[in-house]
């Protein structure tokens, strides 16, 4: 069980070495900076609220652990300036049952989207724009 907030990149394989401690099922989600429809994204600036970020992520992880039988979990979220194609964040969940691992990973993602204090600004060749929170992301919390 661990949460990390960091500027540097992460290596999914290294994160999964020994992860889950014998669990049969491991689910990962990796978020990647994708280019915008115009294809002119230079970088994605990710700002966060340092005093709040880690506690907020730990609370989300705790909620998942209380809800599903997991043998392990991990949340890593980056901040700073990221290029298209760069990894933004990952979650991983391990359980003896695949459905638990899948549901817990989706739960973590849904809460990360609208309950973790990160903000994204797209820097394009023609200007800068803050990414807006999606109503669909807020609505996604209702299913849990």
């Amino acid at each position, binding site marked *: 069980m661990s949460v990390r907030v960091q500027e540097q990149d992460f290596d999914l394989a290294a994160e999964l070495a020994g992860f889950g401690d014998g669990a049969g099922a491991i689910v990962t989600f990796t978020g990647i900076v994708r280019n915008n429809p115009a294809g002119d994204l230079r970088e994605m600036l990710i700002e966060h*609220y340092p*005093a709040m970020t880690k506690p907020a992520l730990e609370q989300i992880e705790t909620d998942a652990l209380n809800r599903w039988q997991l043998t392990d979990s991990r949340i890593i979220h980056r901040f700073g300036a990221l290029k298209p194609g760069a990894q933004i964040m990952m979650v991983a969940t391990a359980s003896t049952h695949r459905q638990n691992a899948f549901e817990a990973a989706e739960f973590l993602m849904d809460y990360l*989207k609208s309950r*973790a204090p990160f*903000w994204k600004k797209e820097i394009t060749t023609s200007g800068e724009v*803050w990414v807006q*929170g999606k109503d669909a992301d807020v609505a996604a919390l209702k299913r849990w």
Partner: protein
Amino acid sequence: MIDVVYFAWVRERIGVPREQVETNAKTVAELVSELSAREDRYELAFSDLSAIRVAVNQTLVEFDAPLEGATEVAFFPPMTGG
């Protein structure tokens, strides 16, 4: 004295990431009114509160939350993690 912090476009409109505010406001909403009365940049930043979220001592709250015991109040747009 309360530390007031701003993030993302709220920070850009206010023009500073953090400041100390002397206030007798009882709730977040009262603090917002006080700040908005100060200068246009605050009024502009807080003109649509439906687009703003607030945390007191690093915990998300509503605008009617009391400020008793508050040491840090943060204003920011809806979060976009993940």
